[in-house]
């Protein structure tokens, strides 16, 4: 029973990441592209706050690496950015749990903006950065989505009894 519970938790967490990855490369009209929220980061932040013992820097790194492969970006680019998010989220997960939802959303904004700036910085070092502030719009969209996603993932966690 213990093993079964453990496995089921893992499957549920892994599926949520898979859905986030699919959403990250789901094609949309070109003009919407700059508004695409950072699904992977959102899901990652939720699990890091809710279950920091289960999802942490290691998970973040692996998922980031998959994202790098799917995006065709430099290997390690998103992996580094996502593990930064996970590190900060796990580091402050106790405080974050106590925050009201909107305050969490602001933190999400900051985390994802840090993620985007790190990616932008790496791209700049590699000489392939687009010079535009639009790079930060995904973090704003992600912030607006956070409260809804939080509720959805919390319900999934409770129904699936993930811990």
């Amino acid at each position, binding site marked *: 029973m213990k093993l079964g519970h453990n496995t089921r938790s893992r499957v549920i967490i892994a599926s949520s990441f898979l859905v986030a990855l699919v959403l990250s490369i789901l094609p949309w009209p070109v003009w919407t592209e700059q508004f695409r929220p950072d699904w992977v980061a959102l899901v990652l932040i939720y699990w890091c706050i809710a279950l920091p013992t289960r999802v942490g820097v290691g998970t973040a790194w692996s998922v980031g690496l998959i994202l790098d492969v799917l995006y065709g970006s430099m290997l390690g680019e998103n992996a580094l950015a996502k593990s930064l998010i996970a590190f900060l989220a796990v580091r402050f997960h106790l405080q974050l749990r106590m925050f009201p939802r909107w305050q969490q959303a602001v933190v999400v904004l900051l985390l994802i903006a840090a993620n985007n700036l790190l990616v932008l910085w*790496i791209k700049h070092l590699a000489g392939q950065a687009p010079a535009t502030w639009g790079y930060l719009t995904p973090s704003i969209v992600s912030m607006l989505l956070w409260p809804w996603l939080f509720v959805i993932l919390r319900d999934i966690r409770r129904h699936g009894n993930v811990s």
Partner: protein
Amino acid sequence: MLQVSHWHIRAPSNLTRFLLLALLSVSLMLLDARGHHLQKIRAGLTVLFVPIQIVAAFPVRVGSAVIDFIRGDESLRKEIARLHAEQPILLARLEKFEAIEAENAHLRQLLGTSALVADRAVAAELLEVASEPYRHAVVIAKGAKDGLYLGQPVIDAYGIRGQVSEVGILQSTAILITDPSHAIPVQVNRNGLRAIAFGTGTADSVSIRYLTASADIKEGDLLVSSGIGGGFPFGYPVAKVVKIVNDPNESFLDISATPVAQLSHNKEVLLIWPAKSNIPADAKKPTDNNKPVVRNNPAEPKKPVATRKPAEASPPANAPRPAISEPAKPAEGEPPP
């Protein structure tokens, strides 16, 4: 229920793990960016995660199938009629083109330069997946087994779309000419003035850099690939100049151009194998990519053909490029109005 006490035990390990993984990421990036040592690993990983891409492409597939179903026979019949009407015109044009091509080859023989031979082209389907924000890439459903190679030109019916940036086993990635890491040597079709078109990261614009105010370039000029650098064959339409800004404070003109290929249409592309011994054998020798800009940019900081991966597409030394001896050859596929 979540053991708070664990937090105190785990804290150092969390930081340590982050630092270790950060170090690993940085070394991965260095390996990937510098020597492309990770091609094999990346190809393997790509195959592993193809299912995710297939799932992501699924909705669009279903969507277009549904649309086809709703449109029904009537519109298909119309389309067939239109194509029937179009075909003779195209054939007639092609006939003439063949005659001109033969004449051109003959003249080139007289001049002692090598003839331009038609390139081999194969149509390839695209997998409808989005790329990273501000990167412009497409996934092609063909891979190494179909003979694709790094730096291979990707075109459509109207002009050059981009080049293959990553060859997988089953599928490959191509960056478009609008990708910020892409650059293509071009020349003005009207007078043969050479330049380089850089991707900007915005969907419908490339920028022409390092042309001085005295350069003979006008709005509306068609830019075709110049064939210098060896990656792209000569004479394919690339972009149309839309705006030229001459800021006296800047050393160079600020020129933006719109790609003539339909970059946002995710249907099908053509992969071409440039004729003659143009296929780069993953050459390690120093490229002469510097050539195209030397004229215009005495102080250009970064490498001119700044494509991240396909930059090795170096031309074989024996292939004389046509661009020098020839000021204004009409592009073979004059884009439709």
